[in-house]
C-alpha cells in the first residue's frame, strides 16, 4: 500500500456543519453532515439551541397559566397546542364542554392547520427556489391571522382556549368572513398547484427524495402528514375523535410512494379537507354557552393521563400527572410531533445530495420552538 500513488484528488469524507444559523433549517437546527462528494453518507442532528425548559416551567405554574405557555411551543400552530392541553386537563377532571365551544374549537384548529400548512408550503417552496409560492402563501396566511386577530386579539400566540370552554364567543359577522376566506383560499390553492404540482423542477427536486416505507415510518415514530405520505392510515381526528370531529365528514388523504412529493400532495389536500370541515362546522354551529361548569380553582384529582390530538405537524400529546394537592401539575410532558418526526431525518437523508437536505428538512415540517421546548 505504501507504493500506491497518491490520488490526485483528496477523496476523504468531508464533515460539514449545516446550521444552527442557516436560512433553510427553519430555526436553530444543526445538522452535521458527513459527505462523500455531494452525497450525504451520514448525519447527526443536533438540537437543543432553543431549549427553554417549558416542561419545568409548567410544573411551577397554575393549570390556567399553562395555556399561555403552550402557545410558545409550536408558535405557528398555537391554537392546536392550546386545544391539546385544555382537552387533557378536561379529561383529567371529567369536565363537560358545551357543544358550541367544541364547534368553535374545531373551526379554530382547522384555521390553524391552514395557516400552518401555508407557512410550511411557503418555506418549503422557497427552500427549493420557488419564490412566488412563498409570497402567495404568506398572503393567504395573513388572512387567517386577521381572522384570529378579530377573534382573540392576537396574531401569533392566541391563548384562545380555556379549560372547560372558550374565553370569547365569535364576534358578529365573523362566520361570514370565514366563509369568504374559504372561498378565496379554494381559488388560491389552485394557483399554488399550477405553480408547483406539475412543475418539472419541483418534480425533479421532490420525487423519489427521502422515501420511507409505511412500516419504517411507524417504527421511527413519524406522525401526521409524513406518516400518511407513506400510506399509513392514521389520523387522530378520525381514530380517536376529539373536539367535534366525529360530527363532520372529511377524507384523510394518503400517499403511495412516501417521498417528499407525496408529503407535499397530502398537505395540499389537507387544505381542501380543512375548508370542508370549517364549512360544516359553520353550517351546524349550535347556539348555547361557550363555557362549561368549571370549578374556580382548577385542581384535578390525583392521577395521570396522556391525551393526543392531531396538530398540523403530527400527534401532539400531553402527559400530565396531577398530585391532587397543588394547583399546578406535578409532571407536565409534551410529546412534540416535530421532535419525533425530526428523528427520521437521519434515515431519510442518507444517500441524497446536499441540496436535498433542505428539501427533507422542509418536508418534515419542523418548528424548532417545539422540538426544543
Amino acid at each position, binding site marked *: 500500500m505504501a507504493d500506491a500513488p497518491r490520488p490526485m484528488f483528496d477523496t476523504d469524507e468531508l464533515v460539514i456543519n449545516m446550521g444552527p444559523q442557516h436560512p433553510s433549517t427553519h430555526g436553530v437546527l444543526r445538522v452535521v453532515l458527513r459527505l462523500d462528494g455531494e452525497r450525504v453518507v451520514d448525519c447527526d442532528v443536533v438540537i437543543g439551541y432553543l431549549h427553554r425548559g417549558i416542561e*419545568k416551567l409548567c410544573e411551577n405554574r397554575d393549570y390556567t397559566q399553562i395555556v399561555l405557555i403552550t402557545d410558545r411551543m409550536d408558535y405557528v400552530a398555537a391554537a392546536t397546542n392550546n386545544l391539546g392541553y385544555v382537552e387533557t386537563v378536561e379529561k383529567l377532571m371529567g369536565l363537560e364542554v358545551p357543544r358550541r365551544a367544541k364547534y368553535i374549537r374545531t373551526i379554530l384548529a382547522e384555521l390553524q392547520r391552514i395557516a400552518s400548512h401555508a407557512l410550511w408550503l411557503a418555506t418549503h417552496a422557497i427552500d427549493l427556489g420557488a419564490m412566488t409560492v412563498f409570497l402567495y402563501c404568506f398572503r393567504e396566511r395573513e388572512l387567517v391571522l386577521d381572522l384570529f386577530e378579530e377573534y382573540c386579539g392576537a396574531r401569533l400566540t392566541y391563548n384562545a382556549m380555556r379549560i372547560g370552554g372558550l374565553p370569547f364567543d365569535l364576534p358578529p359577522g365573523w362566520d361570514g368572513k370565514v366563509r369568504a376566506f374559504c372561498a378565496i383560499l379554494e381559488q388560491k390553492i389552485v394557483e399554488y398547484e399550477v405553480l408547483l404540482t406539475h412543475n418539472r423542477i419541483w418534480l425533479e427536486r421532490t420525487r423519489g427524495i427521502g422515501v420511507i416505507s409505511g412500516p419504517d415510518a411507524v417504527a421511527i415514530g413519524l406522525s401526521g402528514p409524513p406518516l400518511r405520505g407513506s400510506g399509513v392510515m*392514521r389520523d387522530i381526528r378520525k381514530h380517536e375523535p376529539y373536539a367535534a370531529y366525529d360530527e363532520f365528514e372529511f377524507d384523510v388523504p394518503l400517499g403511495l410512494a412516501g417521498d417528499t412529493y407525496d408529503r407535499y400532495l397530502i398537505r395540499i389536500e389537507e387544505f381542501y379537507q380543512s375548508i370542508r370541515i370549517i364549512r360544516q362546522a359553520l353550517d351546524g354551529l349550535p347556539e348555547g354557552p361557550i363555557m362549561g361548569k368549571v370549578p374556580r380553582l382548577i385542581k384535578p384529582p*390525583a392521577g*395521570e*393521563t*396522556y391525551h393526543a390530538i392531531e396538530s398540523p405537524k403530527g400527534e401532539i400529546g400531553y402527559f400530565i400527572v396531577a398530585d391532587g394537592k397543588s394547583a399546578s401539575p406535578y409532571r407536565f410532558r409534551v410529546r412534540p410531533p416535530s421532535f419525533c418526526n425530526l428523528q427520521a431525518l437521519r434515515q431519510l437523508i442518507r444517500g441524497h445530495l446536499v441540496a436535498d437536505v433542505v428539501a427533507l428538512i422542509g418536508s418534515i415540517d419542523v418548528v424548532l420552538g417545539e422540538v426544543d*421546548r
Partner: protein
Amino acid sequence: MADEPAPKPAAPAARPAPKPAEPKVEAPAGPPDPPPPDGLAPPAIVTAVAEALPGAVTQVSHWVGDWTVITTPDRLVEVCRFLRDDPRARLDFCSDVTASDWPARERRFDVIYCLYSTSLCHRLRVKVRAGDGEPVPSVSDVWPAANWLEREVYDMFGVEIVNHPDRRRILMPDQWQGHPQRKDYPLEGPGELLLEDPIEWLRIRNQVAATDIE
C-alpha cells in the same frame, strides 16, 4: 437607592454558591396508580400480557379511561416485544417515552411508555419504576422511535438507560451538570450576570436578601 447601608458591596472573598433548591413541601410519595374499579374488566390486551408472561405484570392501573401496565426493569424489553408482536396487542407505534420523578420514594423514577396500535387503534401505557442509577434497558431496538425519547429521559432525569445505541444528552449541552427535570433541581439559576460580572451579581443578590428581611 444607594442610601441603604449595603453590606460589603464588593466582597471578592465569598464565592457565589449556587442557590439551594427550594425544599418541596409535603412531596407526594408517588403517583396513586389506582387499580381498576371492581366492575370493570381489563381489556384483552392487558390480560394477554399477564397470561403470556407470568410474573411480568406487577400491577394494572386504570384512570380516566387509560390503562397502564406496571412492570419491572428486568422484564421490560420482554413485555415490550410481546406488546409489539402479539396479534391482540400490535402496539407498533411508540408515541412517547417519558419519566416522572418522586424523590420521596425509594425508587424515585417512573419511566412511562405511551404506546399505540396503528392497526387496532388502541392505546396502552407501560410503566417501570427505577431507582437513581438503577439500569433501565433501552427499548429502541423494539421501537426505533424510542431512541431520541430515551435520550431525552436520560438528559432530563438522569435515568440510567442501558443498551442504548447512542446515549448522549439531547437538549442540554454535552458538558452540563445535573438533570433539569428532577424535582430537586432548582427552577431558577444564577443567570448570565454571574458569568459576566460576578461582583455585581453578588451585590444585587445581597441587596435583594437585605430588602427581603425588611
